[in-house]
């Protein structure tokens, strides 16, 4: 079961993948998101970081599809996506083995100097890949930068992203990872 807040966030995240707005997502859409990320950070899909992103996105897709794509047509509707995310990552135990590596791969890619911190422009590149605006980045950064030092800790970001996709707590700061929920 999921709360309205969780459903809202999940539905929003479907749009992050379905940027062409055709109402379904495919493996190619998810890897398209990966391509957008890789290009933004200048990473080859065959290099260590790029391959990590692409492989983890494949695992993510397999998990999403296995849970709901009952007709095996290779595409997932918003309803199927919602059902799958809830079953796999909220009620199920797939977050740690499947979703977490994908988030870690993206954050490692975004941490261009490898200092464990994500700068505003790095978060903006990630956000752009997910179809979010510069304003979303500003809102998210302001909410997530607890000590206001102008950079986000990668470990903290990992938990923020996890909260975005799984938390039912209306006060969880991770709810704002992609910007204001009310602004969509």
């Amino acid at each position, binding site marked *: 079961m999921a709360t309205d807040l969780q459903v809202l966030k999940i539905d929003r995240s479907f749009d992050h993948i379905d940027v062409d707005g055709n109402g379904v997502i495919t493996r190619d859409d998810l890897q398209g998101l990966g391509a957008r990320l890789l290009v933004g950070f200048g990473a080859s899909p*065959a290099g260590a970081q790029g391959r990590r992103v692409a492989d983890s996105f494949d695992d993510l897709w397999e998990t999403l599809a296995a849970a709901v794509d009952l007709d095996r047509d290779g595409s997932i509707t918003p309803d199927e996506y919602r059902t799958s995310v809830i079953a796999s990552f909220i009620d199920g135990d797939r977050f740690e083995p499947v979703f977490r590596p994908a988030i870690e791969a993206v954050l490692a890619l975004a941490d261009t100097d490898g200092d464990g911190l994500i700068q505003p422009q790095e978060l903006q590149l990630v956000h752009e890949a997910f179809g979010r605006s510069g304003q979303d980045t500003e809102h998210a950064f302001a909410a997530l930068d607890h000590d206001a030092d102008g950079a986000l800790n990668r470990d903290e970001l990992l938990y923020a992203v996890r909260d975005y996709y799984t938390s039912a707590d209306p006060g969880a700061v991770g709810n704002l990872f992609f910007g204001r929920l009310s602004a969509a």
Partner: protein
Amino acid sequence: MTTTPVDARPHLASLLQHVPALAGRCRMHPRTEAAGREVLRWAEEAGLTDTPAEVRRLHALGGHRMAGRVFTDSSDDKLVLFARWLTWVVLLDDHWDERSCPAPGQIDHTYDRLLQVVDHDREPVRADPMEAAFTQLWLVTAARMGPAWRERFRAHLELNRLSTHWEARARRTGRFSPLAEYPRHRRVASASFIFDAGEAVLGTELSPALMALPAWSRLADAANDVSTWMNDVLTLDKDQREADLSNYVLAARYHRRLSLPMAVSWVIDRIADRERDLTQAARALPAAYRDLGLSHGAARAASKVACAYLALPHANLEWICEAPRYRLSPSGASGAWPRDWPRP
């Protein structure tokens, strides 16, 4: 992560040591081998494998494994289509290699006939198997593409004609062209229209505004340079045996009066520079998307094409290391060496 490809070529270790960004391992489309079987069937039906030598050549080519590395996430039919394109392009390249000194008229005749297909969307009268196969690929690929893409494909095919003349002239005369000409000609000689075909196969059509940006051409040129120069380093033994004067390492050795190891180092240093340019060019794209006001969907579609460029050097490296066509041939030279040049 595995960094050693199947068949370690001469100079591979040195290349990877000086250009660590080329280390890695490509993902491979899960249906690559099935695509390879489809390509063989298609080539047979198209009459491209009428002799035992042609069959051997096609098996040694393995273009589907290059396609599978660049289009890792495409649908099966797109993978097969791109693998056919790659196969056709390599066969065209071999066509010129076999005629060690093709006459300018022969080259023009071939390209005029191909351009007829592009201009009129139909097979030329009395088409040979290569022309018929090209027509088939063209009609499927161009069907959903607009005038700007067609114009671009045509322009790249024309440029390929010029670079074929350039290579043939070097072979005919036994003289290296000026070193400064190499980057531009090598880029075009690698059949830049194959990238246009790839874009169409991916189901996207890049906007002319994006294509016109220096950011985009820097990406395409850098990927192409890294890929072709790396080819010249890794196939040096074969090209030296065959007196291939279009090899950048051999040209650098000649013009700069370098020893062979020093010429290899010189080209590898240039590859390292271009690899850095490739990374920078990719990183410049998000700002270019913003400046052009591209939608998120259009930016993501463009990124898929850009990602194929980023994958190209790795894919080519692995392909060169595994494909039998890049190994030394027993036949020896097909061109002529400069008179003042030490024979290998």
